[in-house]
């Protein structure tokens, strides 16, 4: 027989530290890789708001970054895709109004980056 305990003595449920999934890289799932062409980007944040994996980092830039048409975009800007987490769904490429993203097969992207 286990001893009877009051509710105040019960142990808490599993308590985990927050956001530990950052240690689990889902980039390995990718079949297609989004290739981001910064010179076509208008920093509209559409891809960022849709990405289901929060794999498109952004930053606040006072000096600005060069984007579509050579224009300088200041404020919140889109950075290079985080390939540690991007699963290659292709939503960003499909929804980008400026066609600044294209999807290529992962092995081709790998080969291309090896040649560089």
């Amino acid at each position, binding site marked *: 027989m286990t001893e009877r305990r009051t509710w105040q003595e019960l142990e808490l449920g599993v308590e985990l530290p927050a*956001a530990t999934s950052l240690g689990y890289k889902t980039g390995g799932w990718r079949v297609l890789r989004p290739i981001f062409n910064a010179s076509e980007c208008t920093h509209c944040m559409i891809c*960022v708001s*849709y990405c289901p994996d929060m794999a498109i980092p952004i930053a606040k830039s006072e000096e600005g970054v060069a984007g579509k048409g050579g224009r300088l975009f200041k404020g*919140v800007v889109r950075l290079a895709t*985080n390939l540690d987490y991007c699963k290659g*769904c292709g939503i960003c490429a499909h929804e980008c109004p400026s066609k600044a993203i294209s999807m290529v097969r992962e092995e081709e992207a790998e080969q291309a980056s090896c040649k560089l």
Partner: protein
Amino acid sequence: MPTLQEIALKTTGADARIVSGHRMCSGCGIGSIVKTVLAASDKPVVVVSATGCLEVVTTIYPFTAWNTPWMHLTFENAASVASGIEAAYKVLKRRGKIDEEVNILAVGGDGGTYDIGFQALSGALERRHKFMYLVYDNEGYMNTGNQRSGATPFGANTTTVPAGKVSFGKPQWRKNLVEIAAAHRISYVAQAAVNNTMDLYKKAQKGFSADGPAVLAVLQPCPSNWSFDSSLTIQYSKLAVETNFWPLYEIENGIVHINTKPSNRKPIEDFLKGQTRFRHLFRPGNEHVIVEMQKMIDDEWARLLKLEESGIQF
């Protein structure tokens, strides 16, 4: 007016309330819905999940994608757990043990909401707990492989109502959860879709700041069980709105307001095409199913317009 830039800052990076590394299928609509809704809270958020894809993929032990207090008990009781949290929070506040303002969010899939968690939800709404209930509606029990739910649309093929020689798939229409929630006379109920981030964000803001319980139903295309290419999630959501299959509207203090009215509603085939769960509807002999579906959608839309026009309090 919020901007996409402001929303993006809250959904991305180390301070976001849900982070990368979760194991939703590639292209799953849940990710964008949940991050946008969480970003809409100007206070810390306590989240309760019902069992389902979101709960499973964000908390595969020992990992968690939650960067905010989060709790899961069972499939059926997300709304009851949220009620308990709200009650406990009120007591702790009254006793001076907490002074921080918080929002409480319960999240369930359609199975966990329209079906198995329905009683818990109705009770929590009736008791007027101050929390928001978010249902991400992928129109079936998707975590267990596409079984029929009360939200599965007429004509869809599921593993429990398979389409074949004698069946065209689900023979019943989906239930209208938004109107059922509104029938509890709560101050805010809304229907949103993942393709319209701004609308979703604003509705989540209203839901969080509602006086009492609020319900937000969001359509969530499921690339794995609706079976379409993972890049098309947003497009299917958009088509659902443009065909009037999933109107964007809200019921605020009982008054119906339609947020977008497609000027040229697209035929329902545009939404059905390319989804494996509706593939059989394009086979000879099943034409009547699409005709019936179209009629139901148009009738429902006409009814919604009338509700709005009348200004009658729900």
